[in-house]
């Protein structure tokens, strides 16, 4: 008997795949960004079905709710128009498509043949927020903190790149009075 769980899982998977294809096909940047949001929301649904509620919520809050808002924000701000259509590059046809096929074949072969990949019951792996918190702040504390420092460096780099260098000999820009 096909469970409702499996049907939902396949439905979310189909939405994610369709969104990803739509992302490539759409010519307008904002439509592409919206398809990416659909993909992320569908993935959150998959996580939820697999018993990882916390990861699902974080996926929606961080990716769909924050990062993609900034994407859309930038597209709106730049008022990016419709992309130009090219006839397709030769590199993509010669290397890209065979490479993609080879990669997916490799993954399929590993998943089907490798003995280490078995079935896992829903909820067998840690997914509750307190378990994830314990893992992050006890066992993986160092990688976690190193990652946060990495992100801090990226933020500082962005600030340095975005701030304009002072004009030599010129007057500094007038400060807006509060």
């Amino acid at each position, binding site marked *: 008997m096909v469970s409702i769980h499996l049907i939902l899982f396949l439905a979310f998977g189909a939405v994610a795949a369709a969104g990803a294809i739509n992302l490539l096909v759409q010519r307008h940047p*904002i439509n592409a960004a*919206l398809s990416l*949001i659909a993909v992320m*929301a569908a993935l*959150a649904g998959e996580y939820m079905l697999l018993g990882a*509620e*916390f990861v*699902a*919520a*974080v996926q*929606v*809050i961080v990716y*769909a*709710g*924050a990062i993609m*808002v*900034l994407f*859309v*924000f930038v597209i*709106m*701000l730049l008022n990016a128009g419709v992309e130009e259509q090219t006839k397709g590059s030769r590199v993509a046809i010669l290397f890209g498509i065979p490479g993609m096929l080879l990669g997916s074949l490799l993954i399929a072969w590993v998943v089907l043949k490798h003995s280490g990949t078995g079935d896992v019951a829903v909820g067998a792996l840690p997914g*509750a*927020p307190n378990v994830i918190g314990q893992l992050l702040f006890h066992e993986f504390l160092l990688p976690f903190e190193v990652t946060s420092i990495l992100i801090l460096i990226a933020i500082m780099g962005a600030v340095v790149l975005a701030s304009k260098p002072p004009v030599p000999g010129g007057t500094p820009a007038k400060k*807006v009075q509060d």
Partner: protein
Amino acid sequence: MPIGLYILVSVIKSAIVLFVLLTSVAYTVWLERKVVGHMQNRWGPTRVGPFGLLQPAADGLKFLFKEDLTPPHVYKPLFLAAPLIAVVFALTSISVIPFGNDVVIGGYVIPLQITTDVNTGLLLILGVTSIGVYGVALAGWSSNNKYSLLGGLRASAQMVSYEISLGLSLVGVLIMAGSFSLRDIVHAQQGHFWGFIPNWNIFHGQIIGFFCYLMAAYAETNRIPFDLPEAETELVAGYHTEYSAMKFAMFFMAEYANMITVGCLATLMFLGGWNGPLFGPPVLQAILPVFWFVAKVFCFLFLYIWVRGTLPRFRYDQLMAFGWKFLLPVALANLIATAIGVAW
């Protein structure tokens, strides 16, 4: 519980909650016009029904009969989708809010909330509200109008900025309750201390957290003093300038539904949820928790309206400076202080 009965109960619960929510939206608008009117020495709506009580029905009819314009220069798919996105996510976020303890009917335990008690209920609300910003942003962009675009940009920048403070202000409560489940958070606030003061989080060291939540919530729902996305004096009507009839009404509904959700969340997180004095016969004791819950949400909504009648609008740079340079550090400090206090 068999699956068919489960679905039936869920549908009935959804219908009741949606009906109550939409009615409350309509009467919050009436309350706002009435209260702000009295604050400004006016009467507010008086003509339709006693005390103008049928004014929401008249407004609804007017929205239905207005001409539904779609300007020729808009990007149509998103122009039509934006109000839908806004209203759908505003109505979805109420689904994880619990309104009271479990009820036992015919041997089945029925929780007084649409979904069952998910462990990450609070995170789901935050996620759904953070997606709601697309409604406003896309409305602004697809209208193809500079005032709308500015409104949409302002709204998305403002909501992303204040979402951080909103989340941080709630983490203090989470640390005290030790759970993401809204039900557990309410249960953690039962009882009294010093004999008479209720054990609510707002009286239990989270007063600064509540202040941060209040400020961030006003900004998240685009209400005065943070209603920059629709500042009439600068932007005509902001992101909904080009919308008319029911499409405009959908933005309106989304805004007020968000206010109510934010009020419910404040009640659950800081004001003790449905905890309150219980007395009288068993029937009254069963109804009282829901009554306390609604009364607290009502007080919160009244505060919203009171603030609207009192404060002027910020300037945009003041809004951003307040959010990033004041509210965020205060929320962080509150979080650290709460963590130290709990660990003690």
